């Protein structure tokens, strides 16, 4: 696609509101119904086609039957988009509803015909201005001139020559026209290359936030992606047999066979747990703790070892973390009394630094005040009691006793149509088991498989 087509496409995208503005502009030119034109007097030169801000507003109100506020707004847009430019104070692009003079901008400089104002163009303009004013450019113009000199240095001879030629061409015109042309060009560049107040202020905040973000990023832990992926692969391998989708579930998938035996066997508390479930307790400490039966078994084991207070403490801390806000203070008091106070009935062994920090925190109890102590005890159990539990007879017996359900026989007639009816909800099955235990909530053991 040629450059011409590409630029046409870009312009046409933004066309609609610009087209409306241009319609207004064209309407203003009507010799009968258009804007009232006056003459601008400069010393001895008279330039036609000037209009006051007040006239513009009045015309807009009359033509489009709008209120003054709207007319002012519309007029402002015309000025800000460069269709009309002020003759006094050209840098101040506002529409004053008084006797301030304005003039129409030539279509060559209109927004719709504005091919991206290029650096080359701007350089030529600045060079022209520099020649005309013998070096008297505004500060920001001088800066940009130097910048452009670096950027498009290779074509600088051309820039200077073209600037000269353009000035020579305009000398062919009469004085009044020359003035108008200069004003037009100046107005165009004030819109397309407006003076920037201070680039520093704009970017300061950006740099600041960036720096903070990057500092944080540096502090984060990094793991090699190969290590990460290895861990992921190991996890998948370990859990593959336990995944109902990958391995199927015994005795049968309740969603298919309408037989809820699977859920019943895996509910929270059962007389005999399934083998898969007991195996999972050996995968990680968290698996053991999150299973109600596993926790119960572990507690039995710890009682034999006379370190059950650790698990009790951990459970109590969990209740504080996840329990009701109103009961937090009460629970923290209890925990302190039972586990942390010197000479407490179930005193837990925490290192002195954590103990001091926790005791300080208890003075202003909140949900997470026990976190450090809980973490300490958790790791204590994980490193010490848990491995021994896995090697213990208690666990091994449990594993041996665990049941592996038989797969139900598939129906003899594989294509027989089954009568469809809505399956019993797993929530109901869980509620039954939970009611038996006196605990509310869904069946987490069955639920976790889905």
């Amino acid at each position, binding site marked *: 696609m040629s450059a011409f087509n590409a630029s046409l496409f870009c312009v046409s995208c933004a066309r609609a509101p610009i087209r409306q503005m241009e319609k207004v502009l064209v309407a203003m030119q009507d010799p009968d119904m258009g804007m009232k034109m006056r003459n601008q007097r400069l010393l001895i030169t008279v330039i036609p086609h000037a209009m006051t801000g007040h006239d513009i507003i009045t015309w807009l109100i009359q033509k489009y039957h709008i209120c003054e506020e709207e007319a002012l707004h519309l007029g402002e847009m015309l000025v800000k988009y460069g269709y009309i430019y002020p003759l006094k104070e050209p840098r101040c692009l506002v529409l004053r509803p008084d006797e301030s003079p304005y003039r129409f901008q030539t279509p060559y400089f209109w927004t*719709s015909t504005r091919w991206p104002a*290029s650096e080359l163009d701007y350089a030529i303009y600045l060079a022209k201005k520099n020649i005309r004013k013998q070096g008297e450019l505004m500060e920001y113009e001088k800066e940009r001139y130097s910048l452009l000199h670096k950027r498009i240095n290779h074509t600088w001879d051309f820039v200077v020559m073209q600037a000269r030629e353009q000035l020579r061409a305009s000398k062919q015109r009469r004085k009044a026209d020359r003035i108008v042309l200069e004003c*037009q060009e100046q107005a165009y560049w004030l819109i397309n290359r407006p003076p920037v107040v201070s680039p520093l202020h704009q970017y300061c905040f950006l740099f600041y936030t960036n720096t903070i973000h990057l500092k944080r990023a540096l502090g984060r832990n990094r793991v090699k992606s190969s290590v990460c992926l290895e861990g992921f692969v190991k996890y998948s391998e370990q859990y593959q047999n336990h995944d109902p989708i990958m391995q199927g579930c015994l005795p049968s998938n309740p969603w298919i066979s309408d037989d809820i035996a699977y859920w019943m066997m895996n509910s929270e508390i059962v007389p005999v747990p399934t083998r898969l479930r007991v195996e999972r307790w050996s995968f990680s400490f968290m698996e053991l703790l999150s299973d109600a039966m596993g926790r119960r078994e572990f507690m039995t084991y710890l009682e034999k070892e006379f370190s059950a207070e650790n698990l009790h403490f951990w459970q109590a801390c969990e209740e504080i973390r996840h329990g009701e806000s109103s009961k937090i203070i009460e629970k923290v008091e209890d925990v302190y009394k039972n586990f942390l106070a010197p000479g407490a009935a179930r005193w837990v062994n925490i290192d002195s630094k954590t103990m001091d920090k926790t005791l300080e925190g208890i003075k202003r109890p909140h949900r997470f005040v026990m976190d450090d102590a809980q973490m300490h005890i958790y790791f204590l159990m994980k490193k010490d009691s848990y491995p021994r539990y896995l090697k213990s007879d208690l666990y091994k017996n449990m594993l041996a006793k665990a049941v592996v359900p038989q797969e139900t026989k598939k129906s003899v007639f594989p294509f027989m149509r089954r009568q469809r009816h809505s399956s019993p909800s797993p929530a109901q099955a869980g509620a039954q088991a939970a009611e038996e235990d006196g605990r509310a909530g869904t069946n987490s053991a069955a639920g976790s498989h889905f």
Partner: protein
Amino acid sequence: MPLVNNKVGDDCTASGDKALADGKALVDSLIKVVACYRHLASCVGGCTDSLQLRNELRQTREKAQNLAGDICHHLTSHLRDKSLPDGQRKEMELLWVAFSSCLELLHVDMCKVLNISGIVSLADSASLVHTGLEGCSDVAARALSLPDLNQAQTDSLPAGLESQERSTMELEISQIDRMIDDMEMKVNVLRWMVEPHGPQYADPLSSTDSASMALQSIDEEQQAPTSQPLCQRSHIFVLLLL
């Protein structure tokens, strides 16, 4: 310049110099024509727009295209010549860069003219924008290096002229497009290696020129919004100069 000790070599460098001079002259005139074209294009759609202006535009454009074709041919053939000595090559590359910038400006101006003629039609003279410009000029004459143009124009707009103009313009714009593409394909000029001759700040045109210009241009740079009317300030300015 490298030393050569055979007659053929001498001829080469001599002809190379001539080629350079030719190329420079061509590029200079193209720059002049492009400047004039830009000047004329800035009047399109305004109150000075007329059939005559469009004619002048067309003539200037044709001249620019002819020049462009010549320069393209000239520079391409010389830059593709591997035996070109280094000094001359550098000069040629400078010309090349100037030429491509010229083409860029011409292309933009042509597109703009095409665009404007779509928005503001010459046939509907009531819609021409009151830009404050007046009077005809000899800009085109300058471009075409003629003492004066043949002012024979028709006042009425022939039917279908505008649409014909449009299609011609579109053709010519795509022609320039292709020229630019061709140039880039055929000759590889490394722009960052090209060094210009001239200084950063151009000298004023001439003392009389600049003085008269400074006198007549209005003082646009008002430091702070003052309530002084424009005339008063220029008045003082003139008094200071006299």
